[in-house]
């Protein structure tokens, strides 16, 4: 039996929709009738389908869940353009109260309101005075009022009404999810980023999901939307795998800025790959249901990530530079050193960080000789009290044919512009033009270079000596994995970090003494912050007692210490990941080679420490227009 063609199926579908439409709206029905009496059955069906769709849209729009679905989708697609914390919170607040009032019929509105007041106004304080004497009685009264209302209006029991307040937690949860709860959890609990979490962070329109699944009305459009939502979520998730998480927790609720920052930071660290849902659909189309969909999706994701990296470097797609960039990135991914990754150390809660922000209120359109300046705030979190040198320079770059105007930092030596810092530091820098502006439009640029920053990373490995595979597996299962949870190096969430790996296979925690297995040391320096690494002054991986194949080589850079002169070009320093030399271990200390013999232990754990010193440049830019 021949299968029906797409055209036939579409016709049948349209006819069915037409009949549904004629039932729903009489006007539509009469229109369909006129069309049909005019002799065109197909025409009638099309009219009917159109009318039906129209009526269903009208019908669906009356559903508060569907409104939230549409609004959630719109804000989700424009999220990339909303770079304002106030607007983000405002939208979150609107959606939270909307869902609480219209979707959950105000059943948990007291709890939602209390949460909002506590979170926004009291800054999520854990002050017992506020919690006990303001929030708790208000919640209690809210629950009691709700219970009484239910009882008196005969809409339910007192207990049912009062406990219904707990529904208010659902909008609160979605408020956090939308702000970036997953990203923050990831940052706080140091969950390794894997594709599932990445996809959840980047591609889930939380309010839209809540809206569509909270719709009360039933019609084809709503059912279709639900179906599409399920397919969308499945196609986003099927690309990922189950996350690995590990311990350590904080207890104080973070502020909205932290949520948004965490979300942005995670997004910034990830190359922007194609929406996996789109990849899935495109691959089904390309290779069909029986083809290698997984492989196709992976390829699309990889190539879109590479394109995103090169686009970020401001290369235009299709140009030779762009193609070279893609080739370079592909080569990098094959390089052993580039592929090493590290994690944030869960035990270090205060990393070295810096923010450099132009105070927009200080920007004036009107230039007055001697009175014009732009203020930029520099804040350095320096919890390890590193002795740093900060150099600040500013310029006004002309956007037209006029000359650039050099800036001068008020109160600083024009030649040096240097400040010595060895603790926490916060200061505002006033930049004034050294000469009068000739043009009108300039780009104000201020650069702070933090010199001699230092960051360390640690790596844990278990040395087992010469054992059988079974013995090693047994040791790993019963003891080693209790001590060493994963194979990545750990470093504080500083502006940059050194990632390193030592072992037979990348991220393998066990190192054996086997003549058939080599031990490689691979490392790189990764720029985590928003600025640039301008110099790597030293790097050192402490492998006391180990020898490597680069130790005797006086020409090649050493994998343990460096750099030698001109080891890093300016172009290399611009990369987010800077590869360090890879080498092979040729000798290791006897107690690690054979712990049973030397230490009377079946295995021995060892923590290696790597450190590097670098200069880091933070740039703040703003376009300005000058009027006399």
């Amino acid at each position, binding site marked *: 039996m021949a299968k029906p063609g797409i055209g036939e199926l579409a016709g049948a579908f349209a006819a069915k929709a037409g009949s549904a439409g004629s039932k729903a709206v009489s006007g539509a029905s009469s229109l369909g009738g006129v069309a049909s009496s005019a002799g065109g059955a197909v025409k009638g069906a099309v009219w009917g389908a159109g009318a039906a769709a129209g009526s269903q849209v009208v019908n669906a729009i009356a559903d508060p869940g569907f409104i939230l679905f549409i609004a959630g989708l719109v804000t989700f697609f424009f999220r990339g353009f909303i770079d304002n914390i106030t607007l983000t919170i405002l939208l979150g607040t609107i959606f939270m109260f909307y869902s609480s009032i219209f979707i959950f019929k105000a059943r948990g509105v007291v709890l939602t309101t209390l949460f909002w007041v506590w979170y926004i106004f009291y800054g999520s304080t854990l002050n017992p005075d506020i919690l006990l004497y303001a929030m708790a009685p208000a919640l209690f009264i809210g629950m009691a009022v709700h219970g009484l209302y239910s009882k008196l209006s005969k809409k339910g029991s007192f207990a049912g009404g009062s406990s219904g307040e707990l529904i208010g937690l659902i909008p609160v949860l979605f408020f956090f999810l939308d702000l970036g709860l997953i990203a923050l959890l990831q940052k706080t609990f140091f969950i390794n980023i894997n594709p599932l979490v990445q996809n959840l962070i980047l591609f889930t329109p939380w309010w839209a999901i809540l809206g569509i699944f909270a719709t009360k009305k039933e019609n084809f459009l709503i059912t279709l939307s639900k179906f599409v939502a399920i397919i969308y979520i499945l196609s986003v998730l099927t690309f990922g795998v189950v996350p690995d998480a590990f311990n350590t927790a904080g207890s104080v609720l973070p502020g909205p800025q932290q949520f948004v920052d965490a979300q942005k930071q995670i997004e910034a660290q990830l190359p922007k790959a194609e929406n996996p849902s789109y990849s899935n659909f495109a691959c089904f189309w390309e290779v069909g249901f029986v083809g290698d969909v997984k492989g196709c999706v992976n390829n699309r994701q990889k190539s879109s990530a590479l394109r995103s990296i090169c686009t970020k470097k401001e290369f235009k797609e299709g140009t030779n530079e762009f193609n070279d960039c893609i080739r370079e990135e592909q080569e990098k991914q094959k390089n052993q050193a580039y592929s090493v990754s590290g994690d944030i150390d869960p*035990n270090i*809660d205060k990393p070295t960080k810096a923010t450099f922000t132009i105070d927009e209120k200080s920007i004036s359109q009107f230039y007055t000789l001697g009175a014009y300046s732009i203020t930029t705030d520099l804040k350095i979190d320096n919890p390890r009290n590193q002795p740093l040198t900060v150099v600040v320079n500013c310029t006004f770059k002309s956007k037209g044919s006029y000359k650039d105007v050099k800036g001068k930092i008020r109160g600083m030596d024009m030649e040096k512009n240097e400040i010595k810092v060895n603790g926490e530091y916060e200061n505002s820098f006033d930049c004034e033009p050294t000469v009068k502006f000739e043009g009108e439009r300039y780009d104000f640029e201020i650069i702070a270079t933090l010199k001699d920053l230092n960051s360390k990373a*640690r790596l*844990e490995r278990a040395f087992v000596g010469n054992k059988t595979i079974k013995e090693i597996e047994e040791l790993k299962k019963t003891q080693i994995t209790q*001590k060493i949870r994963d194979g990545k190096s750990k470093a*504080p969430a500083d502006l940059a970090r050194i990632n390193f790996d030592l072992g037979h296979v990348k991220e393998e925690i066990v190192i054996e003494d086997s003549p058939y297995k080599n031990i490689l040391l691979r490392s790189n320096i990764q720029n985590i912050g928003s600025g640039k690494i301008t110099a790597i002054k030293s790097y050192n991986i402490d492998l006391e007692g180990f020898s490597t194949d680069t130790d005797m080589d006086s020409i090649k850079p050493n994998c343990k210490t460096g750099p030698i002169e001109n080891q890093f070009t300016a172009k290399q320093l611009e990369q987010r990941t800077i590869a360090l030399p890879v080498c092979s271990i040729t000798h290791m200390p006897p107690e690690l080679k054979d712990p049973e013999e030397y230490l009377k232990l079946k295995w021995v754990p*060892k923590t290696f420490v790597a450190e590097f010193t670098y200069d880091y440049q933070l740039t703040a830019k703003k376009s300005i227009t000058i009027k006399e």
Partner: protein
Amino acid sequence: MKKIILILIIALFLVGCGSGYGQEAVSYNFKQGMGELKTTFLSNAPPDKLYPGSNFKMILQVENQQAYDALNGQITLVGLDGTYFKVQPNFRDFQELKGRSLLIPGGDKLYFEFDGNAYELFQNSIQYNNPYFVEIHYDSSLDFTDTVCINPNLYDTYDSGCKKKERSSYSGQGAPLAVTNMEQIVFPSGTGANVEFRLELANRGRGKVGYINLGSGKLGGKLITCEFKGKYLVDKRRVELKEKQQQTKVVCKTFLNDQRSYETPLSVDFTYDYGISEQHQLTMIR
């Protein structure tokens, strides 16, 4: 008042007549159930939280709750990271730790001291947790004894003597290694009958049994032939148990000359080595 005195006298009389602890101990069979070495660190040795640059002591109490002596014991601290902690010595040994008996009903105890130093935390870490393991390896023994009913007369089912039990189960013999089940099979052989005792040995403890050596088997004071059956045999009288196969079988057999049923003691003894690994943690805080 008279009533109170009378009650007191009766109470004293009843207490005096009752069985005291001493008698209970005399009749108590230590070789039952499961017992193994129990380890505990004394309070604050080591402290729950250590500060960088501090010295500390670890005092380990090892208590033998078996009904047998623990011999040639070795205690090792495994998994301590030398970057953060130095513990010396990281292994200790003992010759003998007496098991539970009438003289030491609670089992013997030994204390082992380890001296430790906490070094520095990595960068400005809040804390560092170092899970580690206390491993104890020792040799011990196991005696299995039971009174069995032997009925060699296969045709006389109405023998007026004892009743043969084909299968018996046991909770243990006061050690981690235990005879858990025994089957008795009697079958004709020439003019008499053969009896076969099939013993199932299993590890009921938290640790791991390594090698088991079969000692002697006796039925009514007379030596009988016993041997291991199954996998991982080193020879007929020695077996090495694997991690996932902590059980084995022993078959003892002998020829029966008697014709009537009778009760007689069956005993089989073993020696084995045993290892326990317990997880602990050292925590250094800022």
